[in-house]
């Protein structure tokens, strides 16, 4: 249906996120990525490596969420379902049939992609809160199904992967192989995000997000764009789910498919900057180590305090930096360059 744009009749879903990318990687992006790779190469401390693995994994998962939520405006609070589908598919295949998680990873991605395509087909015409709440309901349906399908998922007791180290089992001794594997996952997703921002496909997604009537008028099929973006995002989230399962070697529905996980994907993107490639990385670099640090500093005295602070940080960042940290950096750097240019003109 056609609606007249106006200040209150139509609330633009995401007018604050970034526009398509023109140049190649910026200096700031290169610095951040180089620092991540360098830190991964030199880390020896086990605890530091653990924090880095979690940071990169969450960064990658947030990048996957960002393809739907940031680039296409499909805010999903049900991505934990895709995460869980990925983790459970590969783990069940491994435990029941002895199929290597490398194959399970692809199977999980395929399952999640189908689920994502189905969900978006059903909800393709819903907007704003209606879409968000449908994804939340989808996540809960998945969680309750996993919780009650004891014979397959182990129910509330969860599933445990035997820590038998081998490449075929995707179980390794020490942290370094995990760190390398997860870094590859995250950097691949980063490269994919940069490609989306520069490609025709990405422009179609942005057009669909910003005004689907206008997009349809110039020959883009908004529903096909939504379905494809959600399918891609779901498949990539599921791959992250398999990696998560192989790293922690334990799964249970309450922790894997909880709405908290879905919220975390979204909040990392929102804090870092929605609809940008570097945003989810920056968000993960801030949120994951900070919550680990706060947890280790505060947990002895009081449980939950680190999450209180986390909640407050999220609220403050969203209200005062609505385009996230990457938007803040862009503002500062453009202000600096303007100052620099003015200086030159004056002299």
């Amino acid at each position: 249906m056609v609606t007249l744009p106006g200040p209150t009749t139509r609330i633009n879903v995401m007018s604050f996120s970034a526009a398509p990318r023109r140049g190649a990687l910026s200096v700031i992006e290169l610095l951040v990525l180089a620092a991540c790779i360098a830190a991964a190469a030199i880390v020896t401390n086990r605890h530091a490596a653990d924090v880095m693995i979690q940071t990169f994994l969450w960064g990658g998962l947030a990048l996957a969420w960002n393809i739907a939520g940031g680039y296409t405006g499909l805010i999903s609070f049900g991505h934990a379902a895709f995460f869980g589908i990925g983790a459970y598919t590969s783990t069940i295949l491994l435990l029941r049939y002895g199929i290597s998680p490398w194959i399970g990873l692809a199977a999980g991605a395929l399952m999640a992609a189908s689920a994502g395509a189905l969900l978006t087909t059903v909800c393709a015409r819903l907007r704003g809160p209606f879409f968000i709440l449908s994804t939340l309901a989808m996540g809960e349906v998945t969680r309750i199904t996993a919780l009650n399908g004891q014979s397959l998922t182990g129910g509330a007791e969860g599933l445990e992967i035997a820590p038998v180290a081998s490449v075929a089992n995707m179980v390794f001794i020490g942290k370094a192989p995990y760190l390398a594997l997860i870094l590859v996952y995250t950097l691949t997703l980063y490269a994919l995000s940069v490609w989306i921002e520069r490609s025709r496909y990405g422009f179609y997604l942005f057009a669909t997000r910003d005004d689907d009537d206008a997009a349809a008028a110039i020959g883009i099929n908004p529903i096909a764009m939504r379905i494809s973006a959600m399918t891609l995002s779901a498949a990539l989230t599921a791959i992250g789910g398999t990696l998560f399962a192989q790293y922690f070697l334990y799964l249970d529905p309450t922790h894997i498919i909880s709405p908290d996980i879905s919220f975390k994907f979204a909040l990392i993107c929102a804090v870092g900057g929605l609809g940008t490639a570097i945003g989810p990385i920056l968000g993960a670099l801030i949120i994951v180590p900070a919550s680990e640090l706060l947890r280790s500093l505060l947990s002895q005295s009081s449980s939950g305090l680190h999450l209180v602070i986390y909640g407050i940080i999220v609220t403050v960042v969203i209200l005062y930096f609505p385009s996230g940290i990457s938007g803040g950096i862009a503002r500062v750097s453009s202000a600096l360059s303007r100052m620099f240019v003015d200086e030159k003109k004056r002299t």
Partner: protein
Amino acid sequence: MNAIAQLLVSGIMLGGIYALMSIGLTLIFGVLKIVNFAHGEFLMLAMYLAWTIVSLLGVSVYAAAIIVIPLLFVFGALVYLLIVRPAVGKPHLIVVFATMGVSIAMQNLALLLMSADLRDVPPVFAGTPIRIGSIYLRIELVLGFLISVGISLALMLFIKRSYFGKAIRATVQDRDAAMLMGINVPQLFLLTFAGGSALVGLAGCIMLPLYSVFPTVGLNFVLIAFVVVVLGGMGSIEGALFGGICIGLVQSFSGYYVAPAYGQLFYFVVFLLVMLLRPNGLLGQRGAAMVGINT
């Protein structure tokens, strides 16, 4: 036959309580066009406040409502002024994420202060159920249902008849036109948000004798509230009443005939079906879900 009558009546009673819990959400959505993701935590706060008053003063939980309702009104006003007002008019995502941050902070603050233990109040009516024919009902449930329905009807009448209600309806229809007609829309927003929170305060007091309170109790109920609100059509009070009773019935029947664990599954499936077939809710206006707002 007896079982069906029992399930029917207790489902309707439960639905009335779900409706009361959801009215604040639907009212705020209808007027401000925002979804408050911290709604469940408001309910959790109300239940903890009521629990604290009951255990400190030893009064009945219904008497505690006299203190809890104004406290939630003030709390809602503060949240509105500090967090929601700066985000109104901006992309709705900002409100979603900002209220979600509030929800995380409140949930964990409760964990910090009250620990994860389940808290209950002693039964108000010494546990003797009402008996109508072969149907047994807890007095707390019947009382909760009557209060819920009474408040819903009073609110509908208020919105239909009073000047303030007229201003609310005008703002729901067209915010800009309402402002041009001299309605103080910012003040109306504040009062609606605070009033919606006060209703959550009442819901908390009514629910405390029926449910235990714990830090994540809100998540459980907010999902029900979302389903109720969407089912009935966002922004509609009679819709909330209708949606609440639907969900109450779904829960009581599926809990008896299938398994309580699947009860939640059923109402989420009902929700997704409604989204598929009648996305504006059963009583909502056409086209609302396609634009993302209900006008």
